[in-house]
């Protein structure tokens, strides 16, 4: 505060300098206002406007009809169920795999640049394009079934089954894990690099085994990062859509029962032109994300306070 007044004494501010900050902010805020702030407010309003028509831009009245309609739609519940399934499978499995890989990468290795490049590649490549490669690999006569044949497994109709939706989900989850792994490894790796190596050296002196060091030192010290990864990945998995689309040629699974929440929003909007239901579903999605973000900030504050004291 004191400094601010000192600055004022130091420099005489012309009229231009008083409005100058707003000129710097103007272009930025124009974009934020039109394409973020306004849509947030509008989507809340729209979710309470009944029978909204995009053609006439009119609606019949205010009410909770869209929410009632959404919550009574079996497709919506199917979308929630599938999305939760996806989250509960992808988040823990990718966490465990990433923990192992990040821990192994976090040491002096020959060719570590090559390893890193390979592990991080899925992060920079188009989900649509690699999704097509996975679709091709998951074909009935594709390379995955061929390789599984060596393990004595019969060909599995991953993407085409007419009865087993579980195969569809498995394919989606495998692709999802592969896709989210780089991001997870990077976060964990940067968390590992922040751990003081002294702890590990001290444990080594006391002749602790690597496994013991991993579970007794690394994992506890990495707990805040692990938690962050879980939250961030849960949020991003809640929004699963771009992985689903190329795998099934734009359909929600081979039997049309692999709706996810974001896919549901899309269908309500583009297929049924029901913008109210789409808005209501989007708000329910946001509610999930909000709760998880709050949990994250809450826990972060607690751990930071602990560090200080």
């Amino acid at each position, binding site marked *: 505060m004191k400094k601010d007044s000192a600055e004022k004494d130091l420099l005489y501010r012309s009229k231009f300098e008083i409005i100058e900050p707003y000129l710097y902010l103007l272009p930025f805020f124009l974009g934020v206002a039109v394409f973020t702030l306004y*849509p947030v407010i509008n989507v809340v309003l729209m979710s309470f406007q009944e029978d909204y028509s995009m053609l006439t831009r009119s609606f019949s009245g205010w009410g909770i009809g869209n929410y009632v309609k959404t919550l009574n739609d079996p497709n919506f519940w199917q979308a929630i169920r599938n999305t939760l399934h996806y989250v509960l499978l992808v988040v823990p499995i990718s966490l465990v795999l990433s923990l192992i890989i990040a821990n192994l990468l976090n040491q002096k290795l020959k060719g570590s640049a090559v390893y890193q*490049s390979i592990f991080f*590649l899925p992060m920079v490549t188009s989900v649509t394009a690699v999704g097509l490669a996975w679709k091709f690999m998951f074909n009935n006569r594709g390379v995955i079934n061929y390789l599984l044949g060596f393990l004595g497994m019969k060909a599995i109709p991953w993407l085409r089954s007419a009865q087993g939706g579980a195969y569809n989900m498995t394919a989606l989850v495998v692709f999802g894990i592969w896709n989210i792994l780089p991001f997870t490894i990077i976060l964990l790796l940067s968390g590992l690099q922040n751990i003081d190596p002294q702890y590990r050296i001290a444990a080594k002196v006391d002749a602790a085994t690597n496994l013991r060091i991993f579970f007794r030192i690394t994992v506890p010290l990495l707990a805040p990062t692990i938690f962050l990864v879980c939250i961030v990945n849960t949020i991003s998995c809640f929004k699963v859509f771009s992985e689903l689309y190329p795998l099934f040629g734009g359909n929600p699974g081979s039997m049309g029962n692999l709706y996810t929440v974001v896919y549901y929003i899309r269908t309500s909007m583009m297929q049924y032109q029901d913008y109210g239901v789409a808005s209501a579903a989007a708000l329910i999605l946001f509610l999930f994300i909000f709760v998880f973000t709050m949990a994250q900030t809450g826990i972060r504050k607690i751990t930071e306070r602990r560090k200080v004291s």
Partner: protein
Amino acid sequence: MKKVSRVFTYLFLTVAGLIMFFPFFWMFLSAFKTSAEVTASPPVWVPSSFSLINFQLAFEKAPFLRYFFNSILVMVLSVGVTTLTSILAAFAFSRLRFPGRKTLFTLLLSMMMIPFEMLIITNYRTVIDLGIYDTVWALVLPFTSSIFYTYILKNFFDTVPESLYWSARIDGSSNWHYLWKVMVPMARSSLTTVILLNALASWNSFMWPMYVIITDSNRTLPWGLQVFTTEAGSNPEQQMAASTVVVLPMIILFLFARKYIVGGVARGGLKG
């Protein structure tokens, strides 16, 4: 014992790396296979010739050259404008004084948790109202300012000592001059990260183009590729050739700029 764990490390990472790379490997190889080779069972591993015929056929069946050009255009415009608006806003939040500066910035940060999926419904309508529906402008305008990139740049600007600013000001430098002649050159590394992350997000963007582009010649690569595979009964080997075209530029970019991209991701994540 130590040797054993060393061997295990390399073995595990190599096997895991091979699995991670396999989809790319398979995509690249299949792009060169003939129709017969690509559907053969058991699969043919190495194509008989490395001719570019599948690329040629894919480019004939769908206007991939046009998609490629659109992708570049959208990327250059949106990354260029976003970088500019982010630099200006970050500087204002970091150095300039105006009432409510901190509150406003906190408010913006909290807006980062809003998923784009939630904004699509209204933005779709806005794009129609602006008369840019089904044009490349619909892909550019909504992505001209970013809270996340502004946040990264502001964080860097905050690390530049304030005394530098005041000594420049006393020497008669204007804010504008100080920003472009002192701050921006110093922020080269943060700027590179911001530009690269933004370029990746723009190039790979799929969902939004799918909502707002219906004319074939206005599509960008991922959306064009997706339509190509569902519409005209295209063959898998041509699909893999087209996918290679989408994926390869970003792989090359990544190999050259890994440090910046990984650093940026570790700091706050990728969009989406």
